[in-house]
């Protein structure tokens, strides 16, 4: 029983969190401003790169959603102490973590739908490419939300937490090949495909772009990208659940 998962209250908490987030519609809208600005720049500079940029923008947006879990979980715990209300109740810690993470994902889905519509207009996606897009984005969400939840529990002050969110977003969203193709990197640094495909955001981007026919991956690169994304997302999600259970009470 100790390792079995309990989902009491998750559906309701998910709905609660979605409703809370939807009240902050401005945050949802402004969360896509950087990505939108990049699309404009690329459209002006080299419109042929637009489909790659839109995919990068989607991956980046989903990683940001995970980082909103960091801020929300920390805010609820530090400022409102609502975590105590929910942890001292029949609702399980895993329901709390996943309810919050999924609720934020749902609330922040509309900008993703807009980006997908733009992508469809620029580069019609096959059924396989759409499937890969959804799977890869879910993997990024699982990774980022779990990482965000973990970091949210480490500090007792919101001001200490803010820089971590920014650091992670840049580390996973800007530095690796998310907004630019992997091939740009490997031309200059041939060895760079390995670390790039081990980073979940760039492996997701490479997989989506490859299945959509926007870039070429060798079978080995497919294996490394797919394997690392799947393993990292699954392990991180399991760790997030473990951590949620562990931190439901302080030691």
């Amino acid at each position, binding site marked *: 029983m100790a390792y079995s998962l*309990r989902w009491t*209250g998750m559906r309701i908490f998910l709905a*609660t969190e979605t*409703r*809370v987030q939807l009240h902050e519609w401005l945050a949802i809208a402004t969360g896509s401003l950087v990505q939108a600005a990049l699309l404009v720049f690329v459209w002006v500079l080299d419109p042929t790169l637009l489909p790659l940029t839109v995919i990068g923008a989607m991956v980046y947006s989903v990683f940001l959603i995970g980082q909103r879990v960091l801020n929300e979980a920390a805010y609820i715990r530090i400022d409102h102490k*609502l975590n*105590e209300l929910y*942890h001292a*109740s029949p609702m399980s810690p895993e329901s709390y973590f996943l309810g919050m993470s999924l609720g934020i994902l749902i609330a922040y889905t509309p900008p993703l739908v807009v980006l997908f519509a733009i992508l469809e207009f620029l580069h019609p996606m096959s059924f396989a490419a759409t499937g890969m897009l959804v799977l890869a984005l879910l993997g990024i969400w699982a990774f980022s939300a779990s990482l965000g939840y973990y970091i949210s529990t480490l500090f007792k002050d919101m001001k200490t937490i803010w820089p971590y969110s920014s650091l992670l977003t840049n580390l996973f969203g800007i530095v690796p090949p998310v907004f630019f193709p992997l091939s740009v990197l490997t031309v200059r640094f041939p060895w760079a495909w390995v670390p790039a495909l081990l980073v979940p955001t760039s492996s997701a981007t490479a997989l989506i772009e490859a299945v959509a026919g926007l870039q070429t991956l060798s079978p080995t690169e497919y294996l490394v990208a797919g394997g690392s994304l799947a393993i990292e997302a699954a392990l991180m999600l399991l760790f997030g659940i473990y951590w949620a259970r562990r931190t439901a009470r*302080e030691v």
Partner: protein
Amino acid sequence: MTEEALRAVDVRKTYHTRGAPAVDALRGVSLTLRKGERISLLGRNGAGKTTFLRIASTLLVPTSGTVEVFGHDVVGHPEQVRPMVAVVPQEGKPFYHLTPREQIYAYLRARGIDRETAKARVEEALDQMGIQEVADRLSITLSGGQKQRAMVATVIATEAPLLFLDEPTIGMDPFARRGVWDSLRRLTNKGCTVLLTTHYLDEAEALSQRLYVVEGGRILVEGTADAIKEQVGGTLKVVIPNGAALKEELASFGKLVSDGGTVYVITGPERINEIMELAMRDRLAATVGPVTLEEAFLQIVGRSIDMDEG
């Protein structure tokens, strides 16, 4: 279910913080709550009240000792304890972007309470806390006291068998405080058990069947408000301004406390006439009044601090 709602035995908690000396927040707390009781923990800031509440509600693991809620160990089987408890956290706030009505309903549903029961309980809790008229406003627009009432309403609506309330009426006006008291009385009449912490000693006295005075992580005194007042030497006090000259004679009537030239005699009702006659003999004014719980608290805790410092 056992008749004991909560049993704590020799609970200790030491906080270790990197770069700082260890802090013994609890140093062997033992207490028992019977089903249907309303009990208050009284103590100064940092006395250990919140630490105990958090341990008992499964939110914090003790360093040693045991706490059982309805016979279930809070450390070994928190998942069995959690459905039976509900907590108003200290300085907790509702979701700012939900209305009180939405927040209470969502919380009850998350606890597994069915729709119809949840709806009925929401209305009842809003009525009891007097926040019906702001029930459909986003909590961010409410005053501090209204937000606190929304938090208390959220928890009392659960009707959980054991309720923990950490300073539940902080920031509330006197009417709202009495609303909380009435709600808690109603809940205990239904069979719920309530453990609360408060700094309002009138609240503790009006509401609690028993009190525990906590200081330095230990329980100093336990009992009814009257029993605790008895511990300082009596339930009545005679105040004699300019009575310093009578101190020697007054000493035989009860416990003396001097404050400048004013002498306070803590005593029982049987000695009042004699003290008043003595004061009248020397043409000194004297007034009689009850010893308040606050005075008893200050005496008991002050004595403990003196002993620790000594």
